[in-house]
């Protein structure tokens, strides 16, 4: 089964007195269950807009996006999805435990099951000692760990992570990598965007590169490593080539 299906997705933002800004331009791709896919692109390429459309925060202007066969805008589609936003400031007047409890209850969990999951996840992300400290007293890195924990609540079969390593120290990044691998071993699908190409290379089976709202490359890590020294070389070359190809298309 396909965890993510995107067909000719278009996302436009209206601008006053100007033509709409097209952030995603006829994007199509799929992610199979059990894959780990990296979603790469330069700043402003359309990564976050794509992810917002996948999560239903942004109704698509055209095309469609599906999660496990359900339309991305429906609540049912998000039953099995865990999401980590790029930056999230959780309620400053709640503690990590209370934050997790809120999200867990909204996920349909309650009672001892929820309590056990909260404790286990906060332990796994390394902020268990701070679980009863108010969020406003936590550092940015700790809040990011809290974000990871809340994304893993429930029976998560698909993880969508936007700028997953942002704010984490090297130890935190290693722990996150281990956590994601453990989830993957459990059968979860992971779809994430990141600028940390080292993390992408360590985790992914496949990468997608988006540029100016369009998919310009889609390769497995083994294909990439057979032709390029590093993922960084591949990325820069692809983006450059992608720019040249777009310019040729426009000229034609």
């Amino acid at each position, binding site marked *: 089964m396909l965890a993510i299906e995107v067909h000719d997705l278009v996302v436009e*933002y209206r601008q006053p007195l100007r033509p709409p800004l097209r952030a995603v331009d006829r994007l199509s791709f799929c992610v199979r269950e059990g894959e780990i896919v990296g979603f790469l692109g330069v700043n402003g390429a359309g990564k976050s807009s794509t992810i*917002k459309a996948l*999560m*239903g*925060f*942004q*109704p698509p202007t055209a095309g469609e996006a599906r999660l496990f066969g359900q339309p991305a805008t429906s*609540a*049912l*589609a*998000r*039953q099995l*999805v*865990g*999401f980590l*936003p*790029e*930056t*999230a*400031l*959780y*309620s400053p*007047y*709640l503690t990590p435990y*209370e934050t997790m409890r*809120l*999200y867990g*209850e*909204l*996920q*349909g969990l309650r009672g001892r099951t929820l309590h056990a999951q909260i404790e286990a996840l906060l332990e796994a992300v390394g902020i268990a000692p701070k679980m009863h400290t*108010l969020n406003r007293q936590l550092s940015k890195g700790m809040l990011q760990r809290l*974000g990871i924990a*809340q*994304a893993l609540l429930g029976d998560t079969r698909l993880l969508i992570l936007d700028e997953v390593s942002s704010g984490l120290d090297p130890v935190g990044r290693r722990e996150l990598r281990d956590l994601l691998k453990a989830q993957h071993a459990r059968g979860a699908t992971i779809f994430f965007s990141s600028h940390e190409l080292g993390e992408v290379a360590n985790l992914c089976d496949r990468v997608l590169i988006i540029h100016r709202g369009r998919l310009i490359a889609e390769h497995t890590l083994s294909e990439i490593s057979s032709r390029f020294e590093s993922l960084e070389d591949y990325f820069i070359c692809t983006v450059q080539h992608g720019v040249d190809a777009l310019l040729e298309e426009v000229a034609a």
Partner: protein
Amino acid sequence: MRVSTWQVCRSLAMVGLLETVRRKDLYVVLILTMLMVLGASAFRIFGVSGLEIFVKDVAFLTIGVLSTVLTVLIAARQLPDEVQRRTIYPLLARPIARGQLLFGKWLTAFVMAGVSFVFLAGTAYALLLLLGIPLKPIFGQYLLLKLLGIGWLCALVVALSVYLTPAANITLSLILAFGSGLFGRLLLMAHWERGVSALGINWLYGVLPHYDLFDMSQKVVYDWSPVPWWVLGAMGLYALASGGLYLLLGWLRLRKQVLG
């Protein structure tokens, strides 16, 4: 399995209550109320006795103004705060519909504002009792009617928050709340002086918000008898119907809205 609307509302409201207590804004309001009531009663020290009605008047004016302002401020920031902090994303990442979120935020605002109002009214009641100024049984009806009004006002403000920026929402909501009595008077004058038809008046009157009709404080101040219970029933129905309509209008916009 989708989460039930009741579960969504309950979870959000409990968190709202926690925030109300921890934010400490409520304590400032309580202190202000106490100061105003005690200040009004302090004139007795200066040889001006018999000012019971005046003290009650000040107390209920304070409760009315503060609870209205609090309600608007609380309700106006429910959704915008989530968007600004980007906590709307982890919320909507859950298997909940936007309509459930909107309803949940309304209930959160209602619980926060309602608890604040009950605190204010309870403090004023206790103070008045200490000052030897008891209140008649109509006070109970006043509390109930005011709570209905707060629920209704929360629905209006939460719905407006989907359409307007927080500053515009707060301004408009306060004008609608404090000016609601005046709008009604102007319509009546238009009918008597300019001959606007009764049907037209009733339509316009039905459309306008009537926050003033949820306020029975003047009857409490002047020790009037309790009103028939059908009045509260009618106002409850009005709150339900028009509050529901406001939330529906809010939902119609929210379901298609780009968030963040």
